[in-house]
């Protein structure tokens, strides 16, 4: 079992540690619901150092990235980032990831890819295998980078306060910049996240993370665990690999057609996912049980006259103060579904995603 460099910070904060994707990670520091409220109302900090980072360098980098991923990386100017997907030839999703244009404006662009912790080894092997025809070099830098997510309406102010010399507040969404903190620590700050709130993800050297964490907490961010991160992402309806998306789902089913750019040219899985889209596969919907405390759990069946489905994630949302869930249902399914749970049948309304949108 591996530990991030922030393990002692978590223990000191009284966090409950659980195994996750081969890592000992904090699931909660106190109450998951309080941590969610902190992120929605002020700010929270998450250790996501277990996530993988792959650097793509060399003249063929753009060509490799375009072939490996579904979004159009040619649109990335220096300092920009985009959400993207890596798919199999049959269109099934191997992982979701963020592609950062990492060079400062070089003639040959290069990229940093941030992938899920649970897939980092297989993703890296896939990327190496499927970019072998390109003039580029891949490096797994996962053990060099720590990654801290500071999220919430006060997150930008908190991080800006730690680096007054840089204009961090001026970094647009899905953009990033290098900065130096007051204590001299070099960091890379990206306006990205996985909570549905504004905020930053801070890349820093593995051993620099404990001091950065302490500074952010001292400035007012609540230490949060993976439990709150999961509730926040379900409220915002961000898919999680292994739940909403996996090798047997294609992007269009999960509402991720917006990151598939067939017009950019060929990429792995392109034709198969376009064919699957035309076939009208089940798609990801929201479910709101009539009983606001009846939480549909992952794997639970969903019954509907148009055909049955399955819950992929469910939780109690403190923001909506009710049970919420996502699940796959036939594309035509509308109105009400039935959830058989705990020996009873609960009615649930089928709704569009997301449950929570910032500013709404």
């Amino acid at each position: 079992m591996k530990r991030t460099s922030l393990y002692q910070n978590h223990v000191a904060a009284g966090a409950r540690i659980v195994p996750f994707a081969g890592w000992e990670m904090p699931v909660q520091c106190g109450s998951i619901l309080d941590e969610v409220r902190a992120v929605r109302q002020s700010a929270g900090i998450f250790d996501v150092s277990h996530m993988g980072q792959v650097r793509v360098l060399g003249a063929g980098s753009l060509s490799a990235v375009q072939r490996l991923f579904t979004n159009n990386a040619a649109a990335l100017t220096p300092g920009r980032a985009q959400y993207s997907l890596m798919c199999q030839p049959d269109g099934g999703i191997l992982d979701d990831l963020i592609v950062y244009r990492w060079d400062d404006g070089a003639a040959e662009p290069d990229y940093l890819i941030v992938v899920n912790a649970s897939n980092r080894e297989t993703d890296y092997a896939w990327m190496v295998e499927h970019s072998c025809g390109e003039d580029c070099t891949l490096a797994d830098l996962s053990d060099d980078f720590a990654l801290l997510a500071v999220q919430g309406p006060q997150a930008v102010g908190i991080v800006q306060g730690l680096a007054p010399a840089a204009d961090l507040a001026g970094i647009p969404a899905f953009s990033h910049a290098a900065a130096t903190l007051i204590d001299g620590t070099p960091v890379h700050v990206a306006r990205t996240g996985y909570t549905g709130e504004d905020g930053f993800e801070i890349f820093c050297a593995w051993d620099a993370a404990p001091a950065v964490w302490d500074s952010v907490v001292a400035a007012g961010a609540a230490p949060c665990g993976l439990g709150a991160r999961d509730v926040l992402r379900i409220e915002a309806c961000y898919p999680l690999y292994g739940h909403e998306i996996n090798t047997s789902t294609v992007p269009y089913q999960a509402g991720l057609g917006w990151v598939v750019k067939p017009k950019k040219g060929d990429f792995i899985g392109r034709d198969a996912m376009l064919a699957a889209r035309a076939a009208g596969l089940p798609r990801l919907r929201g479910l709101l049980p009539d009983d606001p405390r009846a939480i549909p759990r992952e794997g639970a069946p969903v019954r509907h006259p148009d055909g049955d489905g399955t819950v992929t994630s469910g939780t109690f949302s403190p923001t909506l103060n009710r049970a919420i869930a996502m699940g796959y249902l036939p594309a035509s399914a509308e109105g009400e579904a039935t959830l058989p749970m705990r020996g009873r049948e609960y009615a649930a309304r089928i709704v569009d995603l997301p449950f929570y949108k910032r500013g709404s």
Partner: protein
Amino acid sequence: MNTPNELKYATTHEWVRLESDGTATLGITDFAQHELGDVVYLELPDEGRALIADEPFGTVESVKAVSDLVAPLNGEVVKVNTELVDAPEAINTDPYGCWMVVVKLDNPAEADALMSAEQYVAFTEEG
């Protein structure tokens, strides 16, 4: 962890308060609420339902986990805390104030087999 001495405890983390009239009041322990985390859902049996020792009589759910409530004794439910069903989050702050059901015991002597506070603390520390 809070473990009042006057209560009896089950290995499935219910507390039992034996009353002089042959009934028992049940809830879940401080250890249990801490392990569960934020409680968001509680399902309790109706009055009149028979409790069978070692069998589930209800459900308690937190944000992350679903857990059965397991009957520590045989008996019949004579009172249900329906207010707690509407606000189960109170279990996290006051697990021993949050009684769930009152049971008329078939045989109050069965309670002798339950753990004392001291034994329960040792049991939870064994992991």
